[in-house]
């Protein structure tokens, strides 16, 4: 545990903070979620866990848990204080259907999601897309190219992923601040068009 925390002002939010907004950064295994969050976050990314049974039920009562196989799931998150009164949290978790409690927690009140994809592993994105859609979370696609991967035109990706015509597709490098911020901004602009 970090005993310096209480004296480190930068850890805490401004006194006047009123609004905590939430945007999700989702995608399949190793697609760049943690990197993206770490690139934009003003605090070192944190990680939380929930205790689950292997079957996927949330363990509400840990009595008699010994012997039951359990596992913990990580959820990464970062923070951006955007004004004296507004803080934005970025939450990331992989798209495993069985972690229902994690997804319910994460999606509750979320403004939207940036869904990261790797064009060379498109089929791995389908379970996550299904999950995001099943929670009714509006999303934009962030395309991360790995290695020497050839770029693919947006309309090709749109067709392969069966996206709606207005779902934004933004190329971004999760390791680059400007590029990552650009993807987030594109998502927020898209969310604005949906609420007006």
């Amino acid at each position, binding site marked *: 545990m970090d005993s310096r925390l*209480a004296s480190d002002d930068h850890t805490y939010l401004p006194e006047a903070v009123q609004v905590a907004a939430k945007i999700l950064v989702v995608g399949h295994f190793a697609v760049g979620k943690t990197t993206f969050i770490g690139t934009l976050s003003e605090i070192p990314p944190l990680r939380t*866990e929930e205790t689950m049974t292997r079957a996927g039920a949330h363990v509400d009562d840990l009595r008699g848990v010994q012997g039951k196989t359990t596992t913990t799931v990580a959820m990464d998150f970062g923070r951006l204080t955007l004004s004296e009164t507004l803080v934005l949290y970025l939450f990331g978790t992989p798209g495993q259907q069985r972690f229902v409690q994690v997804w319910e927690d994460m999606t509750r009140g979320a403004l939207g999601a940036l869904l990261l994809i790797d064009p060379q592993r498109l089929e791995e994105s389908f379970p996550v897309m299904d999950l995001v859609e099943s929670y009714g979370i509006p999303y934009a696609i962030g395309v991360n190219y790995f290695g020497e991967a050839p770029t693919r035109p947006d309309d090709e990706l749109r067709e392969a992923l069966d996206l709606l015509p207005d779902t934004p597709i933004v190329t971004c490098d999760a390791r680059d601040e400007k590029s990552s911020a650009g993807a987030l901004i594109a998502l927020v602009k898209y969310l*604005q068009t949906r609420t007006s």
Partner: protein
Amino acid sequence: MRAGDGGHDSVDLVRPYVITNGQDLPKGDEFELVTLVTVAAGNARQAQLDPERRALLELCSGGYLSVAEIAGHIGLPIGVIRVLLSDLAGSGQIITRNPVPAAQLTDIQVLQEVLDGLQTRFG
């Protein structure tokens, strides 16, 4: 604190139940991941607290943090942190500032503020 700490084994898993004295875990809407928490002014009854509650109060004494950040810093699962927080809220030792209620600000306003903030910061 490193992201990536973790790895509870089956023995550790019994501990959260002990820490929370067997109370039911509160539902997510009482303490959402982004519910903001701080200590209540004049909070004084720390002497007979167990180490987890004391650590939590100490962490929260510096200002506002989200429930998720508290869980991340303390290193306990969200569900357990919720029990502890709801307990400490019940005894008046912590207070919360809820994530923006729809009645106060519309999504449209929040989105505009988020956009302005992002553009100012990264633009």
